[in-house]
């Protein structure tokens, strides 16, 4: 697979033996944000503000830290994906031309060259003998698509695995607790009698009162029988009369 230079409606070969692609400036918008180290979210918000006048379909934003600030790119991810699919470059690394700014000027096609003007890399007509872009000698930054698919892909993988593991553990735990609940409910249902709990409590109280009275009477009678010379005993729940 050769390394390609992709424009909106045209593709040319940069290197026969390479791989991946370089995107022409017409496929993205670029700005440099001179920020100290900030969070990705904040950098993206800043990039969004800096690139405000861009076309409406350039909704996707990428920020890359470099010395002195952040490189901010805005592009239409859906259109770009379609374009790359057409070229068979779905899994190959892709760079914005701006990312190769430190390698300029270099020849892009016959008669066109890439050069930096006011910090922005542009295609301009070739004037003389610009060198061919050598990916072997030019220090390449992280590619646009490759970077996404490796770093966040790994994190995403871990997250998915963690989520699935936690979900399975949660299901097992909740399942066992639910079974326990059902077992308790069944046990409680098996204890039901012909009477309600309220009625049973009332009956138990009543029976216990009777049992208490009977016990007291038994104790009083036993005490009375121990006395000597007893001829006649009359016992009621209130006590015993001894003669």
């Amino acid at each position, binding site marked *: 697979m050769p390394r390609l230079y992709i424009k909106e409606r045209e593709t040319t070969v940069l290197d026969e033996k390479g791989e991946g692609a370089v995107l022409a400036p017409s496929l993205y918008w670029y700005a440099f944000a001179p920020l100290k180290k900030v969070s990705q979210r904040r950098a993206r918000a800043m990039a969004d503000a800096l690139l405000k006048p861009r076309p409406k379909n350039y909704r996707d934003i990428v920020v890359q830290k470099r010395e002195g600030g952040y490189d901010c790119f805005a592009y239409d991810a859906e259109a770009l994906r379609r374009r790359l699919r057409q070229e068979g470059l779905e899994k190959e690394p892709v760079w914005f031309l701006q990312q190769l700014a430190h390698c300029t000027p270099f020849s892009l096609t016959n008669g066109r060259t890439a050069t930096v003007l006011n910090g922005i890399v542009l295609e301009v007509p070739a004037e003389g003998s610009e060198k061919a872009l050598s990916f072997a000698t030019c220090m390449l930054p992280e590619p646009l698509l490759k970077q996404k698919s490796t770093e966040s892909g790994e994190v995403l993988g871990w*997250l998915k695995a963690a989520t699935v593991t936690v979900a399975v553990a*949660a299901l097992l735990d909740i399942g066992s*607790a639910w079974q326990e609940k059902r077992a308790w409910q069944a046990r*409680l249902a098996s*204890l039901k009698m012909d*009477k309600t709990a309220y009625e049973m409590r009332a009956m138990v109280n009543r029976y216990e009162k009777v049992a208490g009275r009977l016990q007291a009477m038994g104790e009083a009678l036993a005490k009375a029988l121990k006395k000597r010379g007893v001829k*006649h*005993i009359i016992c009621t729940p209130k006590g015993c009369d001894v003669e």
Partner: protein
Amino acid sequence: MLNSARWWGVLIAVVLLWGASAWWLNTSNKKLAAETAERAALVHRYKQLRARYSPSAQKVARKRLVEYIRRRGAEVKTRHEGGVWRLEALVRPDVAEGFLKRLFMEGPVLKKVEISQKKGSVWIVLEVHP
């Protein structure tokens, strides 16, 4: 396809859901366990007391008491008057002793007990709730 921020959201939601469900189920199971234990104790006590003090158990207890005295060769008179069941028996002192022990262990619910010594015998009169 979800991005990593959304996966974090899903993970946190799953953990929160797990925690909330586990807490609810745990609380509910504890309540059920306490309620079951309380109900089991009540049912046990109810059955125990009913076996001794229910009207049918009282009837059986009365019959057994009469049989106990008759088996020991004494004469027993029983009658039912004014909502009270009355038992009169003239027994030997040794029979009277066993009878009185048994009376409060498994006998019927008594309203009145009358005991008199008469020429080497014991005269027992019981008034029992019908």
